[in-house]
């Protein structure tokens, strides 16, 4: 999976490394901003109220 992604990235190795880092950063942003908040809403360990 990752080997195929590496081959698909254009340019020389050093440029591929930069591209891979940018992709990783984008994935982290999407997770932090949208995915994790949505997941946390359905987990029980953040409840602080009674009732």
């Amino acid at each position, binding site marked *: *999976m*990752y080997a195929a992604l590496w081959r698909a990235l254009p340019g020389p190795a050093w440029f591929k490394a930069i591209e891979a880092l940018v992709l990783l950063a984008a994935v*982290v942003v999407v*997770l*932090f901003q949208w995915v*994790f908040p949505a*997941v*946390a*809403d359905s987990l*029980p*360990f*953040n*409840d*602080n*109220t*009674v*009732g």
Partner: protein
Amino acid sequence: MIRRLVGGLGELLITAGALVLLFVAWQLWWTDVVAERDQERIVQALADDFASGGTGLPPEVADAYPDLDEDAAFAIVRVPRFGEDYARPVIEGTGRPVLELGVGHYDGSADPGEVGNFAIAGHRTTYGRPFHTIDALREGDRVIIETRPEVFVYEIESSEIVRPWETQVIQPVPDDPGAAPEEALITMTSCHPKYSATHRYVTHGRLVETVPREQWRLEDWNDVTGPRVSPEA
């Protein structure tokens, strides 16, 4: 063929492990970073609003938080035990979006200073953890609820640990359901133990002073006996 399948499966498992670790980092660290910034901003907006005679939150702050209805943030809570500068917004309701922006006021519980029980909830961990050190509160510690016209000073009297369904703790007379209230009380709830939701840490207090805004001086009320215990440390 088999080698490729096993290799692919290994990559998937490593990816899943990395995702879980990343989620833990987000929950334990990033939610604090975001929520502390948001809560500070709302407190500042409230403080400016109270000082200027009260026209509501400025539009740029209100618009930044779609979960915040107009006038939903209505008070600032200060707890000298939690630090000289400790201040968090108090917001109507106790839904998840509210508790990420500050301390929530239980629907239907008394208003600040009113006879009955002013009941509020806050995160013990994550999302700015306003009540992280709720177990450091001692008898006689002050909890200050600053509203636009008046500032209410409560003093802590007792604490208890209950299960999440034990709603009698936020009744008008705590632990005495159905009784008619005669005093203005405060109840704070948070989860317990830390990083768990099996129990609730509950602290009760009593109104000792009501100060009109013009006469309010925080420094007269901000001292504690013993060390301060910051929820942020």
